[in-house]
C-alpha cells in the first residue's frame, strides 16, 4: 500500500501541491484526474523524487520514501512511465529496455522479463534492433510501458499514457493497463481522458488546483454530477 499524506510541493513562490493525501491499495488501480495544471504530474514526480517535496510523507508499505534518491525508489518497486513517453530516440528497443532494468540488482532475471515484455508487445520484438525514434507515437508508448516493466514494478505510475495517441492505441493501452494489473502490479494512473481512466479504476481522485477536490469509486465518479460536468463534457 502506497499512502500519501499532506504532500506539498513549491515551485519557487508557487504552491503547486497544497497538501494532498491519497491511498493506493496494493493490487488496485487508482486514477488521478483533473484539469491541466491541477498538479497531477507534480504528484507523480514528487513521489519519484524527481521534484523536491516541501512537506508531507509518502509511505510505501510503511517505509518513508520522501527524500530518498530516485534510484532507491525505483529499486523498492515504484516506477514511473513519464508524460510524453520520453523514450530514448537514438537507442534501440533493446537498449531502451536494458535501461529500464538499470537499477535492478537481479541481473539474471532481466532476460526473462525482457521476454515477458516482448510477449505483451510482440511488435517490439520484431523491431528490437531498430532505433526507438523511428517509431510511431503508439509504438513509443508501448516501449515506454515495456521499459517501465523492466524495472520490475510493484507500483506502476503512468502519466498521461493515452496523450496524443490514435483511438485504437488508446484502447490498447487501457487493455494493457488491465493486463498489467491482473498480473499483480498496482497502478496509479494520471489521465486527462477521465472517462477511460475511471472505467478501469477502482478508485478515482479528482484534483483541482493543487488539492484533492473529492474522491470515490471509479464507476461512482463516472456518474457523479460534478465529474460529468467538468471532465466528461456534459452539461
Amino acid at each position, binding site marked *: 500500500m502506497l499512502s500519501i499524506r499532506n504532500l506539498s510541493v513549491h515551485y519557487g513562490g508557487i504552491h503547486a501541491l497544497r497538501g494532498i493525501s491519497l491511498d493506493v491499495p496494493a493490487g488496485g488501480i487508482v486514477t488521478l484526474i483533473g484539469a491541466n495544471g491541477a498538479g497531477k504530474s507534480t504528484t507523480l514526480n514528487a513521489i*519519484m523524487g*524527481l521534484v523536491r517535496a516541501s512537506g508531507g510523507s509518502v509511505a510505501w508499505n510503511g517505509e518513508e520514501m520522501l527524500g530518498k*534518491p*530516485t*534510484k*532507491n*525508489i*525505483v*529499486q523498492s518497486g515504484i516506477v*514511473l512511465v*513519464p508524460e510524453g513517453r*520520453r*523514450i*530514448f*530516440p*537514438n*537507442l534501440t528497443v533493446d*537498449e531502451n529496455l*536494458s*535501461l*529500464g532494468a*538499470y*537499477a535492478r540488482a537481479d541481473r539474471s532475471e532481466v532476460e526473462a522479463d525482457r521476454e515477458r515484455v516482448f510477449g505483451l508487445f510482440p511488435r517490439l520484438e520484431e523491431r528490437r534492433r531498430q532505433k526507438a525514434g523511428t517509431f510511431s507515437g503508439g509504438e513509443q508508448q508501448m516501449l515506454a510501458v515495456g*521499459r517501465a516493466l523492466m*524495472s520490475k514494478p510493484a507500483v506502476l505510475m503512468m502519466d498521461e499514457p493515452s496523450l496524443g495517441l490514435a483511438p485504437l492505441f488508446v484502447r490498447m493501452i487501457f487493455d494493457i493497463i488491465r493486463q498489467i494489473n491482473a498480473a499483480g502490479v498496482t497502478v496509479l494512473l494520471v489521465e486527462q481522458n477521465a472517462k477511460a481512466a475511471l472505467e478501469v479504476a477502482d478508485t478515482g481522485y479528482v484534483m483541482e488546483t493543487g488539492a484533492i477536490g473529492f474522491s470515490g469509486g471509479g464507476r461512482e465518479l463516472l456518474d457523479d454530477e460534478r465529474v460529468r460536468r467538468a471532465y466528461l463534457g456534459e452539461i
Partner: protein
Amino acid sequence: MKSMSRNAWLTFAASLAGIALLFVFEETFDRFTMQIFKLCAINVILALSLNLINGFTGLFSLGHAGLMGLGAYTCALLAMTPAQKEDNFFLQPIVPWLLDVHLPFLPSLLAAGLFTGFVGWLLGVVALRLRDDYLAIATLGFSEIIRVVLTNAQPITNGALGLKGLPRYTTMWWAWGSAIAVTVFLVLLIKSSYGRAFKSIRDNEIAAEAMGIDVFGMKVLSFTISSFLCGIAGGLLAHYLTTIDPKQFFFLKTFDILLIVVLGGVGSITGSIVAAIAVTASMEILRFLDGPLNLGFLVTNGTPGLRMVFFSALLMIVIIFRQQGLMGTSEFSWDALARIGLLPRRGGKERDG
C-alpha cells in the same frame, strides 16, 4: 553463432594486419610523413575524448584546449631532467620541489592524465549544474583560465616562454599504442551499462532520471574520463612537439577538435577516428593552397591560412547536407559491411576497414 565466430576471426585478422601495417609504415615513411602519422593518432585520442562528452553524453563542452594544456605541462614537467629545467627557467628559477622530479615517460603520461582528470572532476562538479550553451560558455571560460594560469605561474610553468627541448618520447608506437588503447577502452565503456547510461542522458535526461540513473554523477564521471583522456593526449602532444607554450592552448584549439567530431559524427567512435585521420592528413595535403597558386585566370603569391577556408567550406557543406556527419551515431561492424555488400555474407575474406 556462425557469423559471430566469423566476426571474431575477422577482427583478429584485421588487428594483425593493422599491427603489420604499423611496422611497414615505421619502415617506409620518411621523417616528415611519420610526424603527420603520429599527429593523426594524437588527434584520434582528442576527438574520442571530446566525443565522449559531447557526442555520447550530450554535454556541450568546449574546455578541451585548456585541459590539453594542463596534460601537456604536467607530463613535460615530470619527464624533463633537472638540467633541462634549469636551462629553461632562466628568467625566474623553477620552484624547488619541482626541480628534482624526474620520471620516465609512462608514469609522467599517466600522472598527466590523472591530474587532468582530477581537475576535470573539480570543474565538472561545479559546471555540470549548467546545461547546453551555458555549460559551453563556462567550460570555454575555464579553458581560458587554465591558459592564463599557465602564462602567469612563471615559477612552475616558465610562463610565456614555454618549455623547450622536451625529450622526443612520442614515437609512432607510443602515439598509436595509446590511440588503440583509448579506442578499445571507449568501445568497451560505451557497450557497458555506463555507456548506455551516458547515451540515455543525452537522449532524455528526465527519463534517464526516472529510470533511477544518477544523472549528475554520470555526467561528472563522463566529464572526468574525458578529461583524463584529454590529459593523456596533451602529454603525448608535448613530447611530440618537444616545445610547448601557453599560446598553443588558446581556446580556438578546441574548435579544431570539434571540427573533427562534427565531421565524423557526433556520437560515433568510428566517425571520430576516420575524421581525425582524414582531417590531420588533409591539413598537410592541402598545404599547397597556402603557397603561390596559378589557376590560369588567377595568380596569387601565397595566402597563409587559405587551406583553412577549405575546412570551413567543408563544415558548412556537412552542416547543410549531412548534419549527422560521416557516420551519424553508427559504428563500424563487419555485419554492416556485409549488409552493404562489401563482404560476402558467409565464410568470407578479410577486408580492412
